[in-house]
C-alpha cells in the first residue's frame, strides 16, 4: 500500500517543531522581542495561500466572494511581512557592542 502524502507532511511538521525547539532555545534572551517580530513576519508566509485564493476567480469575474477574501488576506499578510521584517531590522540595528574607545 502506498503511503498517504499527508504522512510526509506530518513528518515535516513534527521535525520542524523539534528544529524550532532547539533553534529558539539558542536565541539569546536579549533578542526575544526581535524574535517575536520576526516570527510574526515569517508566519505571514500564509500570503502564499492568500495569493492562491485571490487568483481563484476566472477571467470573466476577477472578484467573487472567495477571491475578495483572498485579496483582503493578501493585504493583511503584506502589512505583517513588511512591518515585521522592517521593524525587526530597525530593532537589530540598535544592538551595539561597547565601543573600546580607550584602546
Amino acid at each position: 500500500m502506498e503511503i498517504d502524502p499527508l504522512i510526509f507532511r506530518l513528518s515535516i511538521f513534527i521535525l520542524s517543531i523539534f528544529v524550532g525547539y532547539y533553534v529558539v532555545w539558542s536565541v539569546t534572551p536579549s533578542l526575544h522581542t526581535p524574535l517575536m517580530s520576526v516570527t510574526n513576519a515569517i508566519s505571514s508566509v500564509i500570503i502564499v495561500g492568500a495569493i492562491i485564493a485571490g487568483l481563484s476567480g476566472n477571467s470573466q469575474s476577477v472578484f467573487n466572494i472567495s477571491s475578495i477574501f483572498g485579496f483582503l488576506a493578501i493585504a493583511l499578510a503584506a502589512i505583517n511581512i513588511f512591518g515585521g521584517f522592517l521593524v525587526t531590522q530597525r530593532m537589530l540595528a540598535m544592538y551595539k557592542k561597547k565601543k573600546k574607545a580607550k584602546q
Partner: protein
Amino acid sequence: MISPNLSAIFYLVSGVLFILALRGLSSPETSRQGNLFGILGMIIAVTVTFLSIGNFSTGFIIVIVFILIGGSIGAFIAYKIPMTAMPELVAGFHSLVGLAAVFVAISAFINPIAFNLGSPGNIKLGSLIEMSIGAAVGAITFSGSVIAFLKLQGIMSGSPITFKGQHPLNAVILISIIITIYLLCSTQSSSLFWILLVISFLIGFLLIIPIGGADMPVVISMLNSYSGWAAAGIGFTLENTALIITGALVGSSGAILSYIMCKGMNRSFFNVILGGFGATDDVSSKSTKEQRPVKSGNADDAAFLMKNASSVIIVPGYGMAVAQAQHALREMVDTLKKNDIKVSYAIHPVAGRMPGHMNVLLAEANVPYDEVFELEEINNDFANADVAFVIGANDVTNPVAKTDPQSPIYGMPVLDVEKCKSVLFVKRSLSPGYAGIDNDLFYKENTLMLFADAKKMTEDITKNL
C-alpha cells in the same frame, strides 16, 4: 508555469531560510544577517507561488496592488512606531496573522476547486479537518490579540475582568468548538463553518479578558504560538511545506517563550491563563497595612550616593517604559562612567510587557548590549555592588518571594537587590505593584525611596552628579 515538484523544492528552500533567520538571533552580530535570510525566504515563497499559478492576467495586477497597499501600511508603521510601543505592535501583528488565516480558510471553504481540495459541499475530509482547525485557531488568535492590544494600549483596562461562571463557560465553548468541527466534517454544512468561526472569535475574546496587564508577556508569547499553529493548519490544507515548516517554528517559538515567562514568575501556565491574578485584594490592602517607616530622599541624596560608589547596578522595569526614561537613564550612566564608576544593567525575565522588552528599550537608548545582563548572570553581583538603582521595577525585586511562603509571589526568582550596600528606588508612590503586595524592600534600612516620575528624577540626578 513551473512544475509542482519544482515549486515544492523552492518552498522547502524558503522554509530552511526561515530556520536560518531564527538561528541568526542567537547573537546580535549574526541577527541582521538572519533577518535578511528571512526576507529572502519570503521573496522566494511569494515568487514561486506566482510562477506556479502562472496566471498573469487582471487578477495578478490586483494581487500586486493589495501587496503594495498592505506593504506600505506595514512599512509606515514599522518606521513610525516608538520602541516603547513594541508590545502593542506585536499583539496587533498577531491579530493580522490570525485574521489572514481565517480569510484564507473561508476562501478555501467557499471555493475548494481553486485549491484542489474537491468541490463545494464535497471537500476532502482531511483538508476539511485541517481547514477548520486552522480557521478556529486563527479566529482565536485574532480576537485574543485584539484584546491584548487594547489592554496594552490602555484603551481597555489592564486589570483582569472576571465574572462568575467564567471558567465553566469557557470550557463549554471549547467543547462546543470541538463538537462543531466534528459535525462540520461529517455534514460539510456551510452554516456550521460560520458558527465555528463565531464561537472561535468569542472564545479568543473570553480567554484573554481575565488576564491582567503584567501577565501580558505570557499572553503575547502564547498568541505568537497560536498564530504559528494557525499557519501550520492552513499549510496542511494547502499542502505547502513552507507554511508547515514556518507554522511549526513559530508555534514552538511562542510556546518556549511562554514557558520562559511562566518560569520567570514561578507560576504554571494554567495559573496565568485562568487569569484574575492580583485582582482580588488590592482595594483592601491599603487600609489594613500598618504604616512602616520609609526613608525617602531627593535627587541630591541619590547623586551623592552614586558619586561615592564604585559600582552601580541598574534594575529597569515597566515603569521605565511608561515614563520613557531610557534615554535620560543612559545619560545618567554616561556621567557615572565618566567618574570611573562601573555600571551594569540587570534584567528580570518578566520585566516589561513582553519578552526582551527592556533590552530593546536600552538598545534604543544606545546602551551597549554587553553591559546588560540576565538575572542568573548578575544576581551574585548585587552583594558586591555599592548602589542598586531600581527604576520602574517592583515585584521582581521583592525579597518576600524568598522569605514568605504565604506570599502569592513566593518562589518567584527575584533580583537580590537588597544585598547591595544601598538601594535607590525610583517610584511615584508606595502603592503595591501588580501582584498587589507590599514590597519589603521599601522599608529596608539601606533603601532610599525617590518619589518622583522616573524620567524627571533621572534627569535631576544627572544634574546633581
